[in-house]
C-alpha cells in the first residue's frame, strides 16, 4: 500500500469533489464537511464517471406514501442512470451485495489529504 497526496486541506469545498488520476485510476475526493472520501470514479453499471454525479441525501425506508429525507451528503447519484451509492461503504442502495464501488482509505497528514492505495 502507498499513500498519494490528492489535495490540500481546504482546497475542496464542502459538498464538492475533486477528480484526479492516481496510478492510472480515476478517483474522486469528496469532502462532506467533516470527512474526505476517496471514491473510484467508475460506476459498476455502465462505467460512467460516477463522481461527476450529485452528492446528496435521499429518502429513508418508510411506510407507503411517507417520505423521510435523510443521509444528507452521504449519497452519490450516478449522472447516467441515477443509481445511488453510499459514499462511506460504496454500496448501492438497491442492491448493496451486488454493486459496490471501491472506497479507499484516506488520512490527513501535514494538512494534506492522502489516499491509500
Amino acid at each position: 500500500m502507498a499513500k498519494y497526496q490528492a489535495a490540500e486541506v481546504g482546497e475542496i469545498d464542502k459538498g464538492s469533489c475533486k477528480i484526479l488520476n492516481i496510478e492510472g485510476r480515476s478517483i474522486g475526493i469528496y469532502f462532506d464537511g467533516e470527512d474526505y472520501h476517496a471514491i473510484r470514479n467508475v460506476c459498476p453499471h455502465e462505467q460512467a464517471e460516477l463522481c461527476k454525479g450529485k452528492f446528496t441525501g435521499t429518502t429513508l425506508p418508510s411506510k407507503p406514501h411517507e417520505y423521510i429525507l435523510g443521509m444528507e451528503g452521504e449519497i452519490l447519484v450516478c449522472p447516467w442512470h441515477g443509481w445511488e451509492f453510499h459514499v462511506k461503504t460504496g454500496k448501492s442502495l438497491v442492491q448493496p451485495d451486488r454493486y459496490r464501488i471501491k472506497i479507499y482509505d484516506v488520512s490527513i497528514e501535514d494538512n494534506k489529504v492522502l489516499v491509500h492505495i
Partner: protein
Amino acid sequence: MDSSLVKKTSKSSLKHGVIDCDFHQTLKSFQDLKPYMPRVWWPRLSEPEATLPITIYKPIPLSRRDAIPGEGLPPGSDPEYAKVDALDRYNISKAILTGSLLTVSAHNNPHYAAAVASAFNDYTLDHWIPKDDRFFASILIATQDPIEAAKEIDRLGSHPRVVQVICTVASREPFGQRRFYPIYEAVVRNNLVLAIHGGGEGDGINPPISAVGTPTTNFERHNILAIHHMSQLNSMVCEGVFETFPTLKVIFVEGGLAWAPHLMWRMDKNFMAMRSEVPWLKKKPSEYIVEHCRFTTQPIEEPSNEELIQMLRMMRAEKTVMFATDYPHWDNDTPTFVLSKLPEDLRRRVAYENAAELYGFSVDERGI
C-alpha cells in the same frame, strides 16, 4: 350432448388434476337478478343499453355458439350443461366461477352497479354453487365506490365456497391509489384473494382502450388489452400495496402472460434509478410480483413451444402461473391444448398446484 365428447379427456390433466381459474357462469336473463335487487332498478334490467355500457363492435360473439345449452339460453347459463360440456369433458377438478357482468365497474351509476354486482353474487350462490362440489365462487364488486365494495365483500366473504373477490382491470384510476384500500382491507380480512379480470376497457366511465385513444377494430383492441393489466400491476407494486397489505394476493386474469417478464425487468431496472421516489419498497419490484401475484394462462400466447417455455421460466411460472379456460367464451383454451405444451415440472404446477396453494385446496382434493 354427444357422449363421445365426455370421454375425451386429456392424459396430462388426468395425471395432475386441473383447477380452472376462469370459468364464466352467467344469467339466463337479466330478469334473474330481480329477486335480489331493489325494485327501483328493475326497469333498467329490461333496457340493454341501460344495463352495461359497450363501446366497440365485436365481430365474434363473446360466447361460443357451440356452448349454447339449448332452449334459447345463453352459453354458460345452465350449470348442468356446463358441468358436462366443460368440467367432465376435460376432467377439471375444480372451477373458480368468475361470472359475468364484470363490467359493472364501467357504469356511470355506482349505486346501480353495486346493486347488479350484489344481485349477481346472490344468484351465483343460489343457482350455481349448490349444483356441483367442483364450483367455487367469486364475489363480484363494482370498484367505483370502494367502501360499498368492501361491504359486499364482508357480506359474503365468510361463505365456505367463496374463494376470491373479482373486478375488472379497467378503472378510472390506478389500483395502487389509497382510495382502493377498503377493498384490499376487506379481501385480506376475509382471507380471500383478489382476481383482476379483463373487461370494461374503454367502456362507460373508463379511460380509452389504448393509451393513445380508441382503436378502430376489435382486432386492434384485443392485441393490446394487457396494457391494462400492466398498468394495474405496476401501480399496485409502485404504490406499496403489498407493503401495506403483506398477505394480499392478486391474480391477473385473462391478460395473457408474456408481458409479465417485460414489466418485471423494466421495473427492476428503473428501481435502481428511482428508488428514492418509492422508499417504501423494501425489495425489487419483481420480488413483490413473484410473491404476491399470479397470472392465468388464457389467452395463452402461441409462439413455438420452445419460446413459450422460455417465457414461462422468465416469469417464474412454477410459482406464478395458473391454468384457466375462460369457458365458454370464444377465445377459451382447453386443458389439453395448454398443458400438453408444458414440461412435466411446469405442468403440474400450472395445472393444479399453484392454484391449490393460493386458494388453500389440499393436494388430496385433486379429484383424480
